[in-house]
């Protein structure tokens, strides 16, 4: 069951499947270690359309919601709430 990062619950863990954005943005994400096959978890998000904070390899990054919507992930536990 795939979903976008934005639909992932806070503290839920998932595997990165793909990024449906520009190749430039894809390269930037990759460079930061946010790439296919990596485990990603959502730390928190800001209200009123603020960025989403994620953790990959124990390091945190903040990304805009538009970007988070294009990042497709596969949650590891289907009952993750």
């Amino acid at each position, binding site marked *: 069951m795939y979903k976008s990062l934005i639909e992932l619950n806070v503290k839920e863990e998932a595997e990165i499947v793909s990024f449906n954005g520009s190749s430039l943005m894809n390269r930037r994400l990759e*460079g930061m270690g946010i790439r296919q096959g990596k485990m990603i978890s959502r730390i928190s998000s800001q209200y009123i359309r603020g960025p989403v904070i994620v953790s990959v390899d*124990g390091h945190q990054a*903040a990304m805009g919601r538009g970007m988070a919507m294009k990042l497709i992930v596969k949650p590891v536990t289907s009952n993750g709430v």
Partner: protein
Amino acid sequence: MRVLLLGNPNVGKSAIFSRLTGSHVVVSNYAGTTVEYTRGALRTEDAELEVIDVPGTFALEPTNRAEAVASEMIADGDVVVNVLDATNLERGLYLTLQLLLTGKPVVVALNMWDEVQKSGIVINSGRLEEKLGVPVIATCALTGEGIPLLKKRLPEARSSSLVSENGASLWQKAADISSDVQQKAGRSATVRDKLDHATVHPVYGPFFALFVLLLSFAFVAYFGDFLHEILEDVFELVWLPAAMWMSGLLGGGGLVHDILIGGLIDGQIHFEESFGLLTTGFYIPLAVVLPYIFSFYLVLSVLEDVGYLPRLGVVVDAFMQRLGIHGLSIVPLMLGIGCNVPGVMAGRMLETRKERFIVATLIAIVVPCMAQQAMVIGLLGQAGIAGLAIVYGTLFLLWIVTGLIMNFFIKGESPEMLIDLPAYRKPYWESLWKKIYMRMNGFIRGALPYVLLGVFVVNIFYTLGIIDYISRAFAPVITGLFGLPGEAGAALIIGFLRKDVAVGMLAPLGMELNQLIVASVVLMVYFPCIATFVVLFKEIGLRDLLKLTAIMIFVVVVTGGGLHLLLQHTGF
């Protein structure tokens, strides 16, 4: 021989650079502090090497301007010191492998070794050296650990045939090597983690940000004032008798006396109003501005080194997006509060022309530099907090309104933010003081000559009657529109040279509080000083600078005129 320092953003390249070369560069705990390369020299026993601090990059194919600088630099380098954040090995190694593909001789500096030890990760650097086929040295640039070894082993730099092709396999290789050489111990959440979460929490985050900003402002205002009072006493006790003695020698009047000492008020030198080179010329920068600059850079440097600024960027992002810029733009805006020049230059960390234009314009119009603020605080603060509140409230309002309007009218893209949130770090006092010292030194060297020149020009203008001429020529605008005495027009002209001197010129005019408010706002909003103007021209080009100037003139006329009418009608 030319040595390049290359690596991901915020891994400590600049810290290693200043350790290797002994030269001073600004180091902070967030990505993008270095937007242009810096050169330095490293003397070894048998050679003098040129060392270049290259802006951080994630890959050799550039995705923004800073990265483009990095990838262009590679061709010119003879040896590459590849700096890695040891706590983030895999993604650092991805760049290392790309570097090895270029065939350049490489030495790897495994930096932030102190953080590795704290976080319970164990890295076998000898094994990493074996795997990569190039020297690997563990370093902690902030304390200097491992730097002598890095210098010693620099000649051992070599190329490696570990990888032969680019592509997805490079990532796999980086991941394999990374997991092979390190063991990560599971660790429980620390106080630092909890603080980390609280400061970007959707509810507590904004409150924390507001608290930090208010506390910072209060600290700068009160600690600045505290230092100012001490320095004022020093001037009164030590410098006043000496200056009075010189005044007597010069006969108490005449052209030379007035330029050097200034006008006597009731037979006495008045440091704020005499306007001589040796009196007001030194008093303004050293006794009024310097204390506030020091207090500001103390606060800013601590916030930078702790790593709070990117998180502040996250918290304000939603708000800033409505102004056409993303949250990280808070960094150039904050730097601009110290001095507009580095603020405008830091705008380079933004990707699109639209963003850079909006940030440059906001800095030029609504971000008054600390030198100017120190003078305004001194001028208005005497009459209580109300005047200052109106001035800052107006600037805040202008920030929002001009931002909204620019975002609406200016074509182009405003990309979303994508940033690393570096771990919070306890600042190393040595490097913190070095940074503050550099910034203070920069202020004294950069500003003092201009302040003296400004005071000199004011005196010449008075003597030649140019001030009177300007006052009359600008009276329709200055008096008619802003309700200010004609002489304030001369301050606006001098403001082009130095804003602090310009505010100083307002002091002897004996204006009412409402006039002082209007004059302060007009001075803060209209043309930035010449140094900022030159940097603006370099950063955004002539066309955009003309556009910026048009916006500025419009804003200053509307705001100055509007505020004048408003204060008059409310009988303030």
